[in-house]
Structures are given as structure tokens and as C-alpha cells.
């Protein structure tokens, strides 16, 4: 044992450091399952707020869902919204403090079911906020029920024989909908299931953060993500399933790009 400890000490040296905790992530243990995309999405946002020097300017709004405890993980000011109401809360904050950077972080049940009206109307008014939308096609926190974004035929605890679209309706493509609204400025769909996609998502969120300074409308970034626990898969299987099933239905890429790029 003693030898092993010495061995680790030899490895943990500044010159060997290739990856470390982002400054704005707290030391609290993440409440997510192994392999979940939330941790990666959190990290990207924390990195960008730090890199853009926005910690003292940022107010985040947490949703109700798996990321309900998000305020424990990122060292910024937070407001916890009621289920689905984050865009309305963000509207109140941004209207009263227009110089601050305001963003919501919401899951598919929060944003695309109970909060549909708040999402659409805040986007339609062109609130100068960023909405980060984590879409994993399922209600994670409550234990794997069908979400508005659950794929046709996909099994969940409330669609145990698979989503029958004739009875349960079709999955809602909220990102496509908000892209049609005049109030949105930048709308894109990304994922965090491969390192390359993580890089693209970071680029997209950085753009969205910078665009908010222009006061030209809502920026909306969907991140197609996984839910190994409720999809009943290993993390690796879930990422493969995401690629083969989620992405054909929710194709990645920009849906609305600002004509006037910031300088």
C-alpha cells in the first residue's frame, strides 16, 4: 500500500497535469449517474463563463429535473425556478438587469412539456437570454418516464411497450420551432457524446454567450444527450444508441445563424 501511495505522489506533479477541474466548478460531488452528459455540459458552461470573465456578471436559472441541484456545482449566482418556468424567471432578471449575462439550463420535460409556453414566448419576445436545452428523450429524475422528446417506439416507464405515436403523439422538436420565431438570434443543436462534439458544443455556447452582449434576441442551444440509467444501457452503449437513434431524429447543426456576426 505504501509503495502504491508513493507511486501516485510521483505521478501527481504539475508537469504531468493534462486535465483539471474547471475553476468555476465547485468541489461538491455531482449527483449524476456515471456516463451522463450533464457533467460535460456543466463543465463546458463553467469553462466559458470563466474564460469570458463573466462570473461576476452571471445569473443562472436551474430547472426542475436531474439538474435541479445545478446550483451546488457551479460557483455563480443562481435562481432555482419552478418546473418549466425558467425562461419566465430569466425574463424577469434580464429585464431588470439588462447588463447581466442570464442563462437557463433545462431538460426536455422542463422546457418542452410543462414549460412550452414560457419557452416559446420568451423566444418570441426575443429576450436577451441564453437557453441551454438538454434533450435526452426521457424524464431522468422521476425515474424514466416518457418525455415530449421520447422517440417513436422508445420504451420508458410510462410507455413500457414503446411510444405509440397514434396514442401518445409525436416527439416535439422544440429547437426547430423556436428557430422559426423572429425573436431568436442563434439556434443550434449539438451533442456531447464524443470529444469532437464536445468541442463543437463549446464553440456554440461561446458564440451564444458572446451574442448576448449584442442584445439581439434569444440564443438557444440544444444538447442532445444520453441517459444510461433510464435507457438501461452502459454509458458506451447509450452513446452508440444516441448516435444511431437520437441523431437521425434530432440532426445536429445550426438552425439559425445571425447574419451580423459580432466583431
Amino acid at each position, binding site marked *: 500500500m505504501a509503495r502504491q501511495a508513493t507511486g501516485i505522489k510521483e505521478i501527481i506533479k504539475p508537469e504531468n497535469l493534462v486535465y483539471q477541474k474547471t475553476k468555476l466548478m465547485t468541489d461538491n460531488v455531482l449527483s449524476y449517474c456515471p456516463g451522463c452528459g450533464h457533467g460535460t455540459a456543466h463543465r463546458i458552461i463553467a469553462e466559458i463563463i470563466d474564460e469570458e470573465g463573466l462570473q461576476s456578471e452571471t*445569473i443562472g436559472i436551474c430547472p426542475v429535473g436531474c439538474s435541479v441541484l445545478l446550483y451546488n456545482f457551479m460557483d455563480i449566482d443562481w435562481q432555482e425556478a*419552478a418546473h418549466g418556468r425558467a425562461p419566465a424567471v430569466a425574463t424577469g432578471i434580464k429585464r431588470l438587469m439588462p447588463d447581466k449575462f442570464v442563462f437557463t439550463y433545462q431538460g426536455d420535460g422542463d422546457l418542452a412539456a410543462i414549460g412550452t*409556453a414560457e419557452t416559446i414566448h420568451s423566444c418570441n419576445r426575443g429576450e436577451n437570454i441564453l437557453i441551454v436545452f438538454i434533450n435526452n428523450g426521457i424524464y431522468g429524475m422521476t425515474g424514466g418516464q416518457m418525455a415530449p422528446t421520447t422517440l417513436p417506439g422508445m420504451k420508458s416507464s410510462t410507455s413500457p411497450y414503446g411510444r405509440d405515436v397514434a396514442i401518445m403523439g409525436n416527439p416535439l422538436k422544440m429547437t426547430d420551432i423556436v428557430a422559426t420565431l423572429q425573436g431568436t438570434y442563434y439556434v443550434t443543436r449539438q451533442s456531447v457524446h464524443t470529444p469532437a462534439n464536445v468541442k463543437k458544443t463549446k464553440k456554440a455556447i461561446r458564440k451564444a454567450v458572446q451574442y448576448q452582449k449584442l442584445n439581439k434576441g434569444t440564443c438557444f442551444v440544444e444538447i442532445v444527450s444520453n441517459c444510461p440509467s433510464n435507457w438501461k444501457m452502459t454509458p458506451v452503449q447509450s452513446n452508440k444508441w444516441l448516435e444511431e437513434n437520437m441523431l437521425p431524429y434530432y440532426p445536429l447543426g445550426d438552425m439559425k445563424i445571425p447574419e451580423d456576426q459580432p466583431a
Partner: protein
Amino acid sequence: MEKELRLMKGNEAVAEAAIRAGADGYFGYPITPQSEILEYLMEAKPYEKTGMVVLQAESELAAINMVYGGAGCGKKVMTTSSSPGISLKQEGISYIAGAELPCLIVNVVRGGPGLGTIQPAQSDYFQATKGGGHGDYHLIVLAPASVQEMADFVDLGFELAFKYRNPAMILSDGAIGQMMEKVWLSPQKERSKTVPEWATTGKPPTRERNIITSLDLDPNAQEVFNQKLIDKYNEIREKEVRFEEFQCDDAEYLFVAYGTSARVCQKSVQLAREQGIKAGLLRPITLFPFPSKKINELADRMKLILSVEMSAGQMVEDVLLSVNGKVPVYHFGRMGGIVPAPDEVVEDLKSKITGG
């Protein structure tokens, strides 16, 4: 600066008083009989004068959550609605109470249940004074009986809300919202530049991050928080009771009534006395905290107490608890949007006296 005398509707007085109180933001949604508040503010364009934000939300749900967001930033924010809309806001109000945020909510009550009627009623008393949404909480509830009080209680409501970090409600009704009276308006106050230490305004390196939430997954911690709320409500009960007495000194029979019913009962006191019945009126101005102690004291000198409300009998339960069996307590009420006439109140009192 002098006060300014104007002839206004109660709803307009709320709107003008909000601007003059230095409110930072108003978020509303149209509903009869209170739409004049939003209309007045949109026409007044305070965002060009004081910088006050005025926004028509897509729903009452959105409006109250915009209030939550603004209140969480330490701003002086408010919303107004009428009964069905206030029901929709209850989710947000519970979260605001749970997050201990100050804000002002105005309910210009109409008859219910359901879509009910657009005429005045006092049938939201339970909802206003007992919490209204889920969980153990109270609002500070002010009951105006005139257009003047509609204006005055905006400032008072904000003051109490910030003093106790608790949502305050003005419980009005369609009659007071719609009627015109002269009102003395306070001079324009400047919007506050003070940022409360708990407000979310962006975390500087000099402090810990601020979190506005009503969530605590640890039952022990949640119970500690619940106890903290109870202590706060008890302090409010101790310090903030407001009421008005009208000819109570020699009274043998007491009306207890608030808002429009209290206006009616003032006349009923006069009519009763003309008939040799020594009646008096206790008008609660705060419905939470309720003037229980005062009513209990008055009960020692009364033969009978009549709670007069435009409802099926809601406040009467608090009167009964206050009196605690000392003397008989009855209820008289009209419903469905009907305002009782002073003489029918007297007739009811007489029937109760004679045991009818």
C-alpha cells in the same frame, strides 16, 4: 414635495402608486376587473421616467415567475390579477414564500368558484390568508376599503415585504378596483439603489455565491427552515396587526368586516343606531396577521358578533377562533358578485339578536 390630489379608479391608483413608490418592475396579464392596472402602466410609460419595467406576460404563471426572477435580484417587483388569475399564480407565490423573496401581489377579487363572475366578491379570503399554494406559509395580507388605501397600501405592502422578506398581498375586490374616489398621491420616490446581500446580481470575488431556492432535500434542514418561517410569521403577528374601530366604545353588537363590506357596515352601524341598536364595527386592515387579540378583547363587551363578508363565510372562522366562545358569532354574506345593502345587514343583525 406636496401630495397630489386626483380622482381615480382604485385600479388606476394602484398603478400610479406603484410608479411613485419607486417600483422596479411590474409583470401582469389582463383579467377583469383589474386590467386597468396594466393599461394605466402601459400608457404612463414609467420605463421612460423612473426606469420601471412594465411587461405583459403570456400568462399569470409567467407573470408571477418574472416577479420571482426580479425579486431574487433584490428588486421591488409586483404583479396584479383577479381571482382565477391569482389561482394560477399560486404555484409561483408558494415558491416566492419558500425562497423568502419580497414582492407585492394585488388581487382584485371577483366571484367564484371557477370562472365565476366579474363582479366584486370576498371569496378569496381563505386562499389569501391561509397560504393559498402548497406548503406551510403565509402572505402579509392588506385589505383596502377605499381608493386612497389602494394607493397607500402599495407602498406599505412593499415596505412590509422587504422588512420580512415575504410576499405581501393587497386583497381588494372589484368594487374598490372599479370605483372612483379622490386620492392623495405621494410624491415620486426614487428607485432604490440598495442591493440586499442575498440578491443574485452576479457573484463578485468578495462573497459566496447567492442561491435563490426553496429546495432542501434534507428533511431535518427543511424542518429547521419551516420553523424559521413560523418564527417570522409569529413576529409579524406580534408587530404588524392593523385595524380600524368604528363606534366600538359603547357598542353592544359588533360587525367585523373588511374592504367593501366594511364600507357597507359603516352605514349599517348608523342605521342600527337610529333604531336604538348600539352597533359598532371592527375593520381588520391586515387579514394576516388577523386582529385576533383586539376582537377577543371587544368580545368581552359585546352581546353578539356578526362577520359580514361577500362570501359564504370565510373570515367568520377567524372571528370564531378569536372570540373563542365568549359570545355568539354569526356570519352574514352575499355571494355571486352581490354587494350587501346596509339595511339588509341591519335586518340580519336584528334577526340574530332575536334568535331568528
